[in-house]
């Protein structure tokens, strides 16, 4: 089972993801956190292979969270799912995220991207495809 942590300050988003990705419950074990600190707590409590986070959150935003994750748990693949699409936010995210997805993001793209990230032995940011990285 692949363990994935989803982080978003909007509960409706977490609930929606949970429902949408229920079909993956056979392959993925998903946890949900409402903010940066809660996410770090979950990461400390158990092992994850992937983290999917929103960018704009109060207190600790996505960029800061991923920065910490990169330092504390470099093996965890880091994916951004953000409502913001402005270049400044992208630039900040690209420093610590492997992939950047913008909301709204359909289930197939999300599932595929997560699958790619997890499958990749050395997942990198979206500019390089997972297939090429494996060689």
């Amino acid at each position, binding site marked *: 089972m692949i363990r994935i942590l989803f982080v978003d300050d909007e509960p*409706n988003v977490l609930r*929606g993801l949970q429902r949408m990705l229920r079909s993956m419950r056979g392959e993925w074990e998903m946890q949900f956190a409402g903010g940066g600190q809660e996410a770090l707590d979950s990461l400390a409590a158990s092992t994850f292979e992937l983290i999917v986070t929103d960018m*704009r959150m109060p207190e600790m935003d996505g960029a800061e969270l991923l920065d910490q994750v990169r330092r504390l748990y470099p093996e965890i693949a880091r994916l951004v799912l953000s409502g913001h699409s402005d270049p400044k936010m992208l630039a900040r995210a690209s420093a610590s995220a492997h992939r950047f997805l*913008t909301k709204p993001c359909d289930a197939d793209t999300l599932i595929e991207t997560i699958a790619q990230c997890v499958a990749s032995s050395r997942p990198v940011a979206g500019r390089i495809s997972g297939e090429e990285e494996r060689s």
Partner: protein
Amino acid sequence: MSENQILIVDRDRATRMALSGALAAFGYDCKALESERSVLELLRTREYGLLLVDPMLPMLDLGALMETLAAEAIETATLALVAAGENDATWEKVLPGLAGVVEKPDGGAYLGEIVHKALDRRAVRGGQACDARTNDQYEALFSASPDLIVVMDKERRVLRCNPRMTRLLGLKEEKLTGLEIHEALCGDGHTRQDCPLGRALDETRKDPAPQRRSLWGKNYDLHSAPLLDGSGRLWGAIDILHDVTSLVQAEQAVLRRLEVERLATNISSKFVEGLDVNEGIDHALARIGAWSQASRAHLFQFDDEAKNVAKTHEWCATGIEPSKDRNQSVPAGRYLWLLAQLCDNKTIHIEDLSKLPDEAQPERLSFEVQSTQSLAAFPVQVGDRVAGFIRLDNVHTTRDWKEEDSLILRLVAEIVGNALERHRAELQHKLLATAIDQLSEMIMVTGPDHLIQYVNPAFEQITGFPSRKSVGKHPIDLFGHAWSDQVKKESLIARIESGDVWRGRGILRRADSQLYEGDMTICPVVEKGGKIGHWVMIGRDVTEQARLEAQLHQAQRMESIGQLAAGIAHEINTPIQYVGDNTRFLKDSFGELAAIVEAFRRLLGDGEQGEIPAESLAAARAAAAKADMEYLMAEIPQAIDQSLEGLRRVTRIVRAMKEFSHPGGKEMKNINLARAIESTVEVSRNEWKYVANLELSLAGSLPPLLGFPGQLNQALLNIIVNAAHAIGDVVGKSGDKGTIRISTRQEGEEAVIEISDTGAGIPEEIRGRIFDPFFTTKEVGKGTGQGLAIVYSVVVEKHRGKVSFETETGGGTKFIVRLPLAGAPAEPAVKLPESAAGAAL
């Protein structure tokens, strides 16, 4: 003295009148008789010194009459009146007692001399003959006379001096007697020949008219009369010196006054003649210098602040070196004593440098350098200010400046002051005229009849109407009907007639019929008594500017919408995300439910046929178990509810965006203030929601507000975003949230909007500048400094409202916006005395 009366007796009226007139001119008192009858009776009154009589009168025996006179000791001399050309000495032979003969009708050229002599001879004769009483009278007269009287013999040796004379000379009469007159009296170095006294003795200088001479420092009229013995021989002279000093002084004063007037006229005419003011001043200095016999005449002028003084004009008498410090500016403080006197509007006369007071040491040194010995200085006033002074110097001589010098110098100073004042006014006028000519704004002046009187070159250039075609026309005829409609609509004329300034824009027509937008200020020129005389219009072609302004405004709106766009995108994208997720879930769930429904439907079909097969029951159970029926039944309604909520959020924000980004336009519209605030809050949600809670307390029943919706929304947004930033600076990333409170209420004719935050407040030192354009405390890139400037512009300039703030360091800030509810004028009308629209702070 009655004895100087002359009796004229002649039948011929013309003769009587001619003689009376001629003798009166010599100062004699005449009585003229036509008839000879009462001659003797009149003469017996002894009031007549002389009888002029026709010897041929039938009723008169002249010889007998003269004998009677002699017998009765009546001292009347007799002259015979004869026809012109008959003066052949016959009568003098016939009547030896005659004093002479006079020709008719007017006595001829020698009348005065003959009469004088006749009277004199009588006096001498009388002197010998007069009784003691008469002699006493003469002596008393001689002693008491206010005139100086001296009697001399034929050799000009002094016989008598009256006491007035001896007092003047300081010598007793006995000391003087016997001296020659020029030694005794004149003492002025006269020789015998040019001694003015004893003129009657000198045939060549004989002249009955008195002579005016200056003697002993005074002025005298000299009368000199010959003394004749009984047979008419000259034996001496009596000189009477009448003191006319005060008369002469008065005469001189009058003459001097005339001279002064001539000088003043001459000087001022040079200025009036249109001479350059500098030439006029040079001329004035030259005239006044020459007139007062000064060595130098200068004009000094202060600069505008009276800090420095410079010698701007100088005249020098022939042979005097011009001074070297011309046009050199000297600090006015250096000659404090002099300037203090002049600025007090006093004149200064210094007869002698040694008489300068101690505190005038710097002045003394300065004068000494210029070899000035004495001087006079006079303030020159321009308006009510002492602008400089005229100074007259005398080199090498001390001089007592007289009162009349003072008079003329003051007068000249006044003329020069007036000329300078006029000159300055002309310069000012020229400057303004040049400025108006060079101005890129068009200027049009109309008369009280509203017809154009003047247009400047910019007017010609912008409108295309040359001055000659514009002057005399009515502005509306030039500018076209679009404007005339506007003029009517805004009752512009009525407003200007009431003394208001009109400012606004209008569509005008050029000479080539092209339309353009003009930005105009029309102000009335209020004359004394409040009457409106002229109108002055200042205008610009703002067609291009209006286009740019519209573009700029649009760009600013786009920019602020752009700044919001990221936040709004986030606000929309988030619900879309979970609506999509839920829909996907519902789709998946439907498939699972459909399988369950299918299994249950089969079960139902089986049941209706009576027997339910065990495998159908098992299949239905399996389907339900596989789909986690419990989970679906719990989640699906929630997914639907949350999706609907998400859609509501999207709908709300899209509507708010639409409302917020109202296309605007130039016309004012009714605005629902509560809706405007709600939309603005909605579109800015992402700006504040991470740092603050927002509390709205909006009055529900506010009347609609007339305004520009797009601009007003932007102003509100700028205040809200500012509030969010202020709170953000305080709470940082602590996770704490501040509060933004927005309330509205009605106060009289105003809607009041208060927007308060719990930020740090505005530091005291920048409170006065927060509405300035480009003023920002934010780091580079975060703010352009336009936010509050736009608020000010929108609220105060566009909506005629007010914006103010209350702030407390550490205690947050509250912005208070007041907007007139309805009927705010589209264009500001400004009362004349006020300079501009009042600032709100």
